[in-house]
């Protein structure tokens, strides 16, 4: 909407934006919207999120007497590595050379009454931790590693830290994968990244997407488009899938306006000149006569008005008011939903980049002009993420909607459906450069004399079938 390009990334949190809070170094991860009334509960204390507004992402906060207080710069640098990999190192340390048994923390001379008294006297959490260390009769006998572990444990209890993180495709995918992987079909961040690369997503792309992973792919594509091109989220049947996860991204209104939704039947019927027999055209009677514009209520409901919920680490606690987002086998969603964005707009409202202005909601039907353009030129990319579906026939319906030479990437949590799809594409000769692949990601602990891969790993992040759609009519024989 502006003629000058907006700054690509806002590096400070603003009123109404979505933020990701990392509490106690990954112990708890949750999304929040910075509305005036937004709060986070830490231990038994409810803290306003207002102190976060205007602070740079990456800032660390501690729990002061009156709520969240920014930490001094020095605190931030020492906050991770050792603690992050403590468990690994600990195991090894203790295994290897522990001639004396590890003592536990019974030798603490500070009573809980003492601690309460310190708190009443206004001691900070860090001061309490220091006092606990000073009053531990065994601390000095511990190995350096055990000392670190002890200190960290006390810090988490008495001096919890809150890290303000910027939601982005990376952090959003990592958070969902860690907390509710089934919600995003077990798509790991490296797999998502590969989908975006393999499908050649970039500015001015016209991207056709089937997103049955809650909107993660739609959001990531919109982030890459940066307010140019289009992401057309298509769906089977008459009601679009939820793409609520896009609300975790801080998409600007420009970017949101580039997200459109259309039923697959409309796209296929628009493409009646298709050169490939379509299962959908043949089999799904009635759909093709539906209007080309999706009912507005449905689209809006699925995108903007349904209150999304944050992801947290509280386990096995079912939030009964969000049944469709629930998963029996998973840790449940947070008790702190992201506030309805309308409330944030009541406040300042000065920010044109917010994704909530009435005129720029995501998921509108594409304009007839765009439909016509795509009919003539095809989409320039395709990503399919339907981890609960058979994809062989779905892809056969989708490929004719692409321009020739357009790359595509199909995600699945099982290999077999992709293998069948690949085989059928090989036979039909609709695509070349077919590759069935699985990324394998490994994280390392890099510490002096203690370098090794992490002892626990995510052993699975999904499979990808990629290729390039081609013109398959053998009718252009060139003579000399």
């Amino acid at each position, binding site marked *: 909407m502006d003629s000058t390009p907006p700054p690509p990334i806002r590096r400070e949190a603003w009123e109404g934006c979505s933020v990701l809070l990392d509490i106690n170094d990954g112990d708890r991860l949750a999304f929040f919207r910075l509305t005036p009334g937004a709060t986070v509960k830490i231990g038994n204390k409810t803290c306003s999120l207002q102190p976060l507004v205007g602070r740079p992402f990456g800032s660390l906060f501690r729990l002061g007497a009156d709520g969240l207080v920014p930490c001094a710069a020095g605190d931030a640098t020492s906050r991770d590595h050792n603690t992050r990999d403590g468990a690994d190192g600990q*195991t*090894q340390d203790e*295994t*290897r*050379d522990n*001639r004396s048994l590890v003592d536990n923390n019974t030798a603490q001379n500070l009573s809980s009454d003492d601690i309460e008294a310190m708190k009443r006297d206004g001691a900070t959490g860090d001061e309490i931790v220091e006092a606990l260390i000073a009053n531990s009769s065994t601390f000095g006998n511990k190995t350096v590693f055990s000392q670190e572990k002890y200190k960290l444990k006390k810090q988490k209890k008495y001096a919890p830290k809150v890290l303000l993180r910027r939601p982005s495709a990376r952090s959003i995918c990592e958070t969902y994968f860690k907390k509710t*992987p*089934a*919600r995003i079909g*077990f798509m790991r961040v490296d797999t998502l990244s590969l989908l975006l690369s393999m499908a050649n997503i970039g500015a001015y792309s016209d991207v056709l997407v089937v997103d*049955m*992973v*809650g*909107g993660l792919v739609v959001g990531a594509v919109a982030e890459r488009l940066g307010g140019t091109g289009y992401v057309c989220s298509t*769906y*089977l*049947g*008459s*009601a*679009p*899938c*939820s793409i*609520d996860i896009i609300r975790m991204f801080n998409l600007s209104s420009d970017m949101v306006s580039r997200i459109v939704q259309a039923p697959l039947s409309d796209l296929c019927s628009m493409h009646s000149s298709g050169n490939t027999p379509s*299962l*959908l055209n043949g*089999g*799904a009677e009635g*759909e093709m006569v539906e209007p080309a514009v999706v009912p507005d209520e449905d689209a809006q409901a699925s995108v903007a008005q349904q209150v999304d919920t944050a992801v947290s680490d509280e386990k096995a606690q079912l939030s009964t008011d969000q049944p*469709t*987002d*629930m*998963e*029996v*086998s*998973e840790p449940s969603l947070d008790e702190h939903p992201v506030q309805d964005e309308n409330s944030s707009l009541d406040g300042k409202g000065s920010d044109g980049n917010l994704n909530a202005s009435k005129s720029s909601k995501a998921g509108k039907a594409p304009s007839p002009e765009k439909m016509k353009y795509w009919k003539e030129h095809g989409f320039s990319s395709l990503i399919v993420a339907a*981890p*609960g*579906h*058979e*994809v062989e*026939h*779905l892809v056969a*319906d989708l490929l004719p909607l692409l321009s020739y030479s357009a790359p595509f990437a199909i995600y699945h*949590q*099982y*290999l*077999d*459906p992709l293998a069948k799809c690949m085989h059928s594409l090989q036979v039909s000769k609709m695509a070349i450069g077919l590759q069935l692949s699985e990324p394998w990601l*490994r994280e390392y602990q890099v510490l002096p*004399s*203690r*370098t*090794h*891969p992490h*002892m*626990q*790993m*995510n*052993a*699975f992040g999904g499979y990808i079938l990629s290729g390039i759609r081609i013109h398959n009519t053998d009718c252009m024989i060139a003579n000399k």
Partner: protein
Amino acid sequence: MTMVPLDPSSKPTSQRLITEGDTVVVYERHDAMRAVAVRAGGVLQNRFGVFRHDDWIGRPFGSKVFGSCGGGGKAKAKAGGGGFVHLLAPTPELWTLVLSHRTQILYIADISLVVAYLELVPGCLVLESGTGSGSLTTSLARAVAPHGQVHTFDFHQQRAASAREDFEKNGLSSLITVNVRDVQGEGFPEEHCGAADAVFLDLPQPWLAIPSVGSMLKKDGVLCSFSPCIEQVQRACEAMKTSFTDIRTFEILLRTYEVRDVALKSVTSEEACVGPLPQKRRMLTSPGENTGCTQRSSSILVRPCSTAKGHTGYLTFARLCV
């Protein structure tokens, strides 16, 4: 009883009937097992009920036995006591899953690679340090039985004693000698000089023991050193260069898969897209549990398990130069 038969008259355990004094592995679930010594009048009580050892004696290993509800009030036998367990013959693999973890232990993938690369066969003499919890030791003993020997060393007195007890219990005493010794400081004892077919090291500073290993091994004999950190591997390899060859470092992981009877939704279904969470229907359920949604016929699909051991350690193998 013995986990590893030692003479032609002793049958493999699985071909025998359970007798008093046997160790059985009581299998509740794949992740819930324990070793139990069978004695007349003995009782095992767990969440599946109360099991009398007397009911086990005379049954074949591999039997399924049912518990009764009862005994102390603590028994929370949900299904009214009709729970069951399986009684398995102990093997080194099962032992690895039930033993007391006095230290970090080696698991089957590392163990099997070690045994293969050390080229252990019946009759070999193998040295090991440290003994740790005896997980590897048990497999080494099986590999060299019936005439071979495992001499295992640990500097930790108590650990050595506990391991010795375990080996005794599993009938491996004639195959395994447990010694208390600081191999990093003192090396292996001179008596094994030039007699070892293979040596295994699991030490924090393996490079200290490597010169001694060189004098213990027969020519072309194989050394293996296990270390969790790459820095240990680097120093160990450096120390091996003078008298070892074929120095190779490996890492082995076991990826496990889960099998599910899945009903993937079809494209042509009107109801195909009902929300972002088709997960619920993906559990391994009985066919009757399918929802009303139009679905393709279900099929058996496989997926890697989500979490796995990402690292255990590096295994460095080397041969003593001829």
